[in-house]
């Protein structure tokens, strides 16, 4: 391959100036799409060296191979420079397009701002600097505050925003191209109305019982683990759609404590009255007086694990109790398995580990079922 410079390219690239009489060095500018890039060309023994500004280098970086190839194939300098100009223009168009994809069109902002103004700026709890995420405030009939989180697509308002809220079920809403934030807020309010009685029942439970789990109940939480007595608790799972019907109940803790409650529950199921609240029903069906936060300390019922001395371990509570009714010591399953595994006298049959309770030393009474 050899390069020769033809004087005729001066007409195509008038901004390139030869630096010597032999026409082996040039310096000047190549213009592409109205932008100008500084270049230095150096011809030596038929080889061409191309030097350019930083911006030129950045633009040509993704198509480096194409540049090298055209450098090899072009018989003349002016043909190479024309190809280089083509490549540059192609790259410039692509970056311009990319920039347009990144930012939403102006209509997005004008629509969004007018929609916020329509709903009232006092409803806005949070908005991110890019105006893509919006948190709206809504108060229900009983004065509870709710936050609706919206993530707006680029095509807003033609496409609906993605909404999420602290509700027991997904927030589904209707959206037309003419809809605004106000429409979403109205539908959100209707949804809030629907759950008023459910939250009333749950709030009653939270305020008059010791709730072990979740640690801080959210509006969407349908499960509660309630203290029945020391070493005994019940986990109820309420269906938010028909929350006054019988919830799913799981009894946890020492068998001596929870056995009678389970029997009561099975015997008194027909006494469940859908017109009463969950708490009232539970009190009747389980025949229990829930320990109340007004008259007792949580520490009396929050029994630590006998091994690690903590209550919450990786979000697990001490669930496993010693089978000896005189001991009934509670452990985290994880702690108990680790201890039994480190003692050589422990025997295993399928997934059941048999070993001594670290507290009462009774083997026959203290076999633990541990699925590992």
């Amino acid at each position, binding site marked *: 391959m050899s390069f020769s410079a033809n004087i005729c390219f001066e007409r195509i690239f008038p901004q390139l100036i030869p630096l010597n009489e032999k026409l082996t060095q040039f310096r000047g500018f190549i213009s592409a799409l109205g932008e100008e890039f500084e270049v230095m060309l150096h011809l030596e023994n038929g080889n061409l060296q191309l030097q350019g500004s930083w911006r030129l280098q950045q633009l040509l970086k993704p198509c480096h191979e194409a540049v090298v190839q055209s450098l090899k194939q072009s018989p003349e300098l002016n043909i190479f420079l024309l190809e280089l100009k083509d490549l540059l223009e192609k790259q410039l168009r692509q970056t311009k397009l990319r920039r347009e994809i990144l930012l939403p069109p102006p209509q997005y902002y004008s629509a969004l701002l007018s929609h916020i103004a329509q709903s009232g700026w006092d409803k806005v709890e949070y908005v991110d600097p890019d105006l893509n995420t919006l948190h709206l405030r809504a108060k229900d009939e009983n004065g509870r505050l709710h936050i609706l989180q919206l993530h707006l697509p680029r095509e807003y308002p033609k496409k609906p925003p993605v909404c999420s809220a602290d509700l027991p079920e997904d927030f589904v809403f209707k959206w037309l191209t003419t809809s605004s934030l106000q429409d979403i807020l109205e539908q959100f309010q209707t949804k809030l109305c629907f759950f008023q009685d459910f939250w009333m029942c749950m709030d009653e439970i939270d305020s008059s019982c010791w709730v072990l789990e979740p640690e801080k109940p959210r509006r969407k939480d349908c499960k509660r683990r309630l203290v029945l007595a020391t070493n005994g608790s019940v986990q109820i799972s309420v269906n938010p759609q028909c929350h006054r019907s019988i919830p799913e109940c799981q009894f946890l803790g020492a068998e001596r404590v929870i056995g009678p409650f389970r029997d009561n529950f099975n015997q008194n199921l027909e006494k469940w009255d859908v017109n009463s609240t969950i708490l009232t029903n539970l009190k009747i069906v389980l025949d229990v007086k829930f320990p109340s936060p007004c008259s007792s300390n949580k520490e009396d019922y929050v029994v630590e694990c*006998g091994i*690690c001395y903590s209550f919450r371990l990786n979000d697990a509570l001490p669930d496993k109790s010693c089978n000896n009714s005189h001991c009934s010591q509670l452990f985290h399953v994880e702690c108990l398995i*680790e201890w039994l595994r*480190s003692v050589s006298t422990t025997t295993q049959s399928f997934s059941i580990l048999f070993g001594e309770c670290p507290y009462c030393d009774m083997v026959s009474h203290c076999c633990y079922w541990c699925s590992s």
Partner: protein
Amino acid sequence: MQRSARMKKELSLLMTQPPFGVSCWAEDENITHLQAIILGTEGSPYENGLFKLAIQIPDRYPFEPPKVQFMTPIYHPNIDNEGRICLDALQMPPKGKWKPSLTIYSLLMSIQVLMNEPNTDDPLMGDIVCKVYTLFA
């Protein structure tokens, strides 16, 4: 993981309600190395003595017993010249009797009891037994 939660509870208990005649503390906020001092019980050969102990908490505590050693030289049939203690509660089962229901608190109490009542059936220092046995008998 279990160690840090448990040591926090144990240390606060040792601070607020130390066992009688015993003090135990963590050396510069490091929960893995504890120090303890046991006062020689009145009426025992160790009366008026201060006995310093070093306690090392292993990573797997409370699934493994802590390592306890006398730093003060002591003349006792179950404690050797290096300060190592022959006590079943400091060993893993089946040889020993360590279990997670024991604590630093209860171990220090056991060591205090051992000082007053040597276990002559299982001596570390055979020559001491003969002398002490007559002394205690």
